[in-house]
């Protein structure tokens, strides 16, 4: 960082442009006036007292010592882990973090921000507590557990969203909700659970769409996005509903015993909803659609860095379906702003494996499977 003016176009014509110094305030953006609104809207679900992040950013005194760290995380594209900042938001934070971190007028001092631990979509249709409490002893920093949720009231239903309300928000790092079905192994004729390729860090695509269907990813601070209107994930009667939850302490709780028993909220759709399905898109060779389909979402779950998903139609025309960055620590599902209709034979390709959610156009509804 050097002394800079507010970097107008004529900056280079001034003598200031050749001055080099670090800390003097050169940022035209202040915390109270410009930075706080961004932090409040985009960061405060985690970076708040009691949140899952190790530091609050919701007051000037709490935020400015982290300016260098904020700069590094933004440049690396790590934060925020959900939807990326807009260009202007990014520019405001970078300008402030590198320009002396001015506080701004006291009159504009922001109101206090409290931890939110609610249901952003409103009260769920059904709330289920995970069957067991998780206890992290002193010194135990992380644990991932799978909970099979009671299926009563869920099996056979159409689901438009799944959300989680942590019992101890400071340690619930991420969660994945999925349906797991058993399959028949013909050679022996015995039923065994399908092995799935889920790792600690993300989801491999191998069994996705076969015996596993990811209903939703949950991140602290992430927006819970329901399926688009008229669509839903169908829960077969014989499926297990699994919540895979990762708990992780920050240094604040390193020597404490912490306990969590989270709640999972289900939001149901009308039984007549069109079914959302998931298909795996392997790296390099991609996947060819066996029938016409509407792409409605792309999972950014097994990639660190860039994820670009491209489409090639049978006539050879190409387009970028989604270009974004991902972090294995923070798997998420990106719902497209509008479904992308692709004809039979269209190809999806990507340099990193992913899973896309599709809806078949004109799909017949099977009312027997839903109610």
């Amino acid at each position, binding site marked *: *960082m050097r002394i800079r003016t507010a970097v107008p176009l004529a900056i280079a014509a001034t003598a200031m*442009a050749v001055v080099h110094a670090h*800390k003097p305030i050169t940022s035209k953006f202040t915390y109270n006036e410009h930075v706080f609104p961004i932090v409040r809207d985009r960061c405060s679900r985690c970076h708040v007292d009691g949140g899952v992040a190790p530091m609050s950013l919701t007051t000037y005194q709490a935020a400015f010592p982290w300016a260098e760290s904020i700069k590094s995380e933004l440049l690396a594209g790590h934060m925020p882990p959900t939807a990326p900042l*807009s260009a202007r938001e990014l520019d405001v934070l970078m300008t402030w973090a590198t320009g*002396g971190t001015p506080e701004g007028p006291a009159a504009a001092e922001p109101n206090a921000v409290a931890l939110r631990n609610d249901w952003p979509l409103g009260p769920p249709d059904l709330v289920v507590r995970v069957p067991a409490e998780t206890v992290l002893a002193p010194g135990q920093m992380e644990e991932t557990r799978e909970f099979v949720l009671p299926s009563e009231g869920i099996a056979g239903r159409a689901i438009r969203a799944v959300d989680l309300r942590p019992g101890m928000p400071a340690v619930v790092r991420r969660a994945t909700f999925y349906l797991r079905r058993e399959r028949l192994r013909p050679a022996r004729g015995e039923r065994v659970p399908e092995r799935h390729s889920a790792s600690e860090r993300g989801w491999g695509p191998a069994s996705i769409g076969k015996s596993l269907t990811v209903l939703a990813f949950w991140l602290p601070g992430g927006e819970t996005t329901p399926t688009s209107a008229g669509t839903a994930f169908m829960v077969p009667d014989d499926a297990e509903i699994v919540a895979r939850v990762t708990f992780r302490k920050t240094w604040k709780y390193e020597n404490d015993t912490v306990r969590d028993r989270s709640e999972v909220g289900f939001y149901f759709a009308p039984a007549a909803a069109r079914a959302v399905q998931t298909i795996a898109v392997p790296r390099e060779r991609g996947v060819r659609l066996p029938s016409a389909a509407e792409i409605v979402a792309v999972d950014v779950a097994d990639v660190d860095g860039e994820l670009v998903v491209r489409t090639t139609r049978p006539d050879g025309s190409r387009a970028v379906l989604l270009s974004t960055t991902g972090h294995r620590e923070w798997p998420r599902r990106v719902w497209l702003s509008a479904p992308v209709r692709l004809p039979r034979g269209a190809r999806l390709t990507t340099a990193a494996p992913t899973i896309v959610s599709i809806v078949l156009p004109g799909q017949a509804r099977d009312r027997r499977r839903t109610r």
Partner: protein
Amino acid sequence: MVGRFAIVALASLLQLPPVSWTCPMHPEIVEDAKGLCPICRMPLEAVRLEQVWSCPIHSVVAEKAGGRCRICGRDLVPITMAMTWTCADRPGVAHAEPVACADGSSPILKYTPRPHGNHNPQHGGAFFMAPDNWHHVEGAYPRAGVFRLYLYDDYSRPLSADRLRRAAARVEAPREVPLVARSGGFLEARVPVASLPAQMTAKVRFKPGEPEHRFDFAFTDYTKDTKDTKDTTDTKEVGASEGQTRDVDSTRTPRDQLKDLARQIADAIARRAFGEIWVPALQAKDVALAIEAATTDRRRDAVSAAVRELVRAAWMLDTYGDLGNAQQIADAHARFVGAMKQLDAALR
């Protein structure tokens, strides 16, 4: 902490810079309001930060405008200093305002160096800040086959001989050669490079156990050490390079301005003038933000996505240009070029 200072006639002060607040123990803390130091909780003290022009080797010189050193005639370079006033009868007491002295004499203006207030090379070489935000380095190529690396602290003061010896450093040119502390206050190595232009990479661990930092240098000519020579008539002007003084032609369209700036960035990288990249990089992101703001039609989403990438890449170029790591700069530039293409496609 008041170090070397210069005395300037008070009458020359027509306008004072605004008051900032700094910690007497942690000068890197500079706030715009009174309060306590966030590190040690000491009350912050008022200070006025001013850009002055100083001699590369006679730091007592502090002039309001560029020119020649009145002692040796060398070109002055811009640095940032703190302004305070003292009275002759109490020289140890500094004030942020011109005060009335008890003995009736005029207050004396002092200019005190600030951390990171001087990023100018002191030996005619290429100057970088280290990623630890404290050290600084200057690479020099005084003659064929000799590479020198000067190490500085946060005030751009040379490290002591003891600290110099504790640093573990090597240079790739292209074969790797250890850098050895010399009595002149620098590290030196004989490098297997005989011709110009020459590219070299220094890798430095300032203290045992600390991370190693990489600094990429390019020399198009042999370095003339301003401290070694009395002849300043042909001394290259320091700090005001071509790239930093180039302006943007505001009569051109924003897209053309952006292309001009992209060319300036590429040019600075090609010349390995990494310290110049930040000016066109930050100008480019401002132009891109203006393009995004002006795009309200159906192209808006695609333009926004491209501008987001471009802004991030511009800040990367700014940051990595400071550090002088050619690989990081190349990666950031590739991202910038990709974002430019993305923006072009979005605007079509």
